């Protein structure tokens, strides 16, 4: 450890980036899984559903692991934030976990069930939808602020504080955004009529996503004064205009790429770009707070010894994880056929 002690980099910022990175990777990866789950509702045919599920079956488990890293990493690197946020978001978090149970087991159970296969499909749809909705609610609740006691170490609000029109709006926004990711993923992974339908679904979801990005972006600055100052004064105005134009620009490319006969891959990566951009905007809003505008990342940070211990592991292991995760995606590249699987 003595080698790293001389380094003057602020490890708290490094860890904030690592956690943010984990959450972003989770959102885009499990985002398309959950989106596909919701799109099950539009595709009642057996072979279409088999294809849709098999397009993510080999990778969903790894995708969900980023959520554990987000939660576990927050616990490790910012234990105070973990201890304040989770009780505050008690209901949406529990709902998300229960929803993810139904969603996760449906991957295996629907191949084993006889009479109840449709039942597990319904669990897959509702589990995916509810998980997406709860995640959006959790994000919205964090943005609108969490009540904390004077000592700054305990959640001081009630257990329904998270439920407001704003949080519901963010929940719906995330559902539509995930549907966009899912549909554009399927454009990439499938062929024929299913792919054609998914192009049309993705186009509608893209329009919805951009409308909701607009609503949430215009609403957020009025939630707390800090956000307003950041976006609507000084250099913030410039950034706001730039981000807004970028969203519209990506949206235009996305719409064009979804026209019949265009390439299969561009829509998914453009949808990803949209998410990355929004995530960046979120970072601009929140920094330097981990709980706006009560607790900064430095107030919540674990001590330096903990940060160093974990950083060694993260610097070695995260690239390895990215390498073999990339390899797994490479192994299962290309179009999916209905009979892929070990079942």
């Amino acid at each position, binding site marked *: 450890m003595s080698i790293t002690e001389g380094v003057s980099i602020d490890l708290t910022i490094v860890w904030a980036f690592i956690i943010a990175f984990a959450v972003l990777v989770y959102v885009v990866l499990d985002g398309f899984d959950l989106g596909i789950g919701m799109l099950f509702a539009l595709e009642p045919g057996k072979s279409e559903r088999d294809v849709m599920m098999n397009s993510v079956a*080999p*990778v969903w*488990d*790894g995708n*969900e*692991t980023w*959520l*554990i*890293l987000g*939660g*576990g*990493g927050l*616990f*490790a690197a910012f*234990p105070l934030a*973990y*201890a*304040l946020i*989770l*009780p505050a978001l008690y209901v949406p*978090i*529990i709902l998300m*976990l*229960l929803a*993810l*149970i139904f969603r*996760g*087991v449906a991957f*295996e*159970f629907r191949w*084993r069930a006889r009479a109840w296969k449709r039942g597990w499909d319904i669990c897959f749809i509702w589990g995916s939808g509810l998980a997406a909705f709860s995640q959006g609610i959790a994000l919205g609740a964090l943005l609108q602020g969490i009540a904390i006691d004077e*000592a700054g*170490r*305990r*959640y*001081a609000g009630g*257990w329904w504080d998270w439920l407001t029109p704003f949080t519901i709006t963010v929940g719906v926004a995330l559902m539509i955004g995930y549907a966009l990711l899912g549909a554009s993923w399927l454009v990439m992974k499938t062929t024929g009529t299913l792919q054609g339908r998914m192009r049309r679904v993705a186009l509608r979801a893209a329009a919805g996503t951009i409308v909701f990005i607009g609503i949430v972006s215009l609403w957020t600055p009025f939630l707390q004064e800090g956000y307003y100052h950041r976006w609507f004064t000084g250099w913030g105005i410039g950034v706001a205009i730039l981000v807004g134009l970028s969203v519209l620009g990506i949206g235009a490319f996305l719409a064009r790429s979804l026209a019949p006969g265009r390439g299969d891959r561009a829509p998914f990566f453009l949808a990803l770009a949209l998410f990355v951009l929004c995530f960046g905007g979120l970072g601009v809003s929140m920094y330097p707070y981990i709980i706006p505008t009560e607790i900064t990342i430095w107030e919540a940070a*674990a*001590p330096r*010894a*903990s940060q160093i211990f*974990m950083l060694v*592991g*993260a610097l070695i*292991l*995260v690239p390895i*994880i990215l390498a*073999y*995760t990339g390899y*797994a995606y490479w*192994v*299962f590249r*290309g*179009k999916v*056929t209905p*009979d*892929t*699987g*070990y*079942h």
Partner: protein
Amino acid sequence: MDASAPPDAILLARIQFAFTVSFHFLFPAFTIGLASYLAVLNGLWLRTGQPHYLELFRYWVKIFALAFAMGVVSGLVMSYQFGTNWSVFSDRAGPVIGGPMAYEVLSAFFLEAGFLGIMLFGRDRVGPGLHMAACVMVAVGTAFSAFWILSVNSWMHTPAGFTIDPDTKQFLPVDYWQIIFNPSFPYRFVHTVTAAYLTTAFIVGGVGAYHLLRDRAAGRESSNATRTMFSMAMWMAVLVAPVQIVVGDLHGLNTLEHQPQKVMAMEGHYESYPEGQAPLYLFGLPNDEAQRLDYAVGIPGASSLILGHRFDAPIEGLDTIPDDEQPPVAIVFWSFRIMVAIGLLMLGLGVWALIARIRRRLYAIPSLHRAAVVMGPSGLIAVLAGWITTEVGRQPYTVYNLLRTSDSAAPLDAPAVAASLIAFVVVYFAVFGAGTWYILRLMSHEPGPSESRLAGIADGPIRTAGITPAQEEQARSRKRED
């Protein structure tokens, strides 16, 4: 600062944690061993080319996928329970245990999840060598996971390598080597992983025995696969059960050194034996009110012999411990006895099978097979009983002697905790009940050549057999892509 949640909310949070973690652990207890078993089966198949190894692999990999999925989703719940229901504990202990838990995610969960897809779906995509490597990675991942999470759990039993911040009251890391390899960790790790192997062995053996009995009743020859899995399981039983008993004894002595109250409760020793000759109670009804063991039946001096290795070794009892630092004795006393009894029965079955094997009658003794069927789920019961012993025995603390359970809970109202508890109970019984049903249904058909329906295209050695048009098309379209 009033740090305590209302008492009924704390009780509900404890019930919730006990419920969700017990349910969760059933799956890893099975899949830790099964992952290794699958890697061994796949290795034997690649090395020998004997089809029954591949049949067994295909048979158990389906069961593994179900159990693993249930372990993943119930494990996700655990990683958030710390924050939702035990936020004060998380704030205080996070700087110390958060690191090892993050290492579990980074070194174990990603490894398992990343290679599970290749293990399940990738045999014909990556070739036998890399597929084997994926099987090994999944098995290694489960072992890494056990390493880190048991290190964290052990630290809560025997905290080491930390200081306490006077302002925030957080535990701060001083020496990670001491934190990870805290005094009870090596014992708990070996004991738990060995338990997982035994659990898997008895499930595999139970399924094998069930099919031996069914085949005998139907008057047909059992498949090679059935015989092989029963035989392998019984080897595990006779080799690993005695090791486990020795390891368990060592773990007990370690507990005596660091958590004497727990051993007192396990033994039912309310009173001290300063002159030695402490009895080993086989039966009794712990009475915490009166601080005595009612209707006790014991072997004189045996406890002194086991714990102190001498008949006259003095043994302290719960009379040396203040009432508010004692664990609830009855639960610890009985769960410990259940675990030990099952361990001895496992050894008995292993020895019985060994004798039958030496006499070349391993597949011919129905009473042995019936006993193996009955013992099939015994590992799961023993594992739960063992965890109840150690976790209840740590009470009333979450971090032993330093942080009380009552001071660890999140500031939640009882209705919130009660509602989520009810939701977890309903969902777990419904979902995991269905999953267990599917597993049992998979187990109810005998492994055999039908498992290898994809073997024709998937695996080198028997390439000519049974290619269906669909698979041919699949193989061709893959070739086009490349």
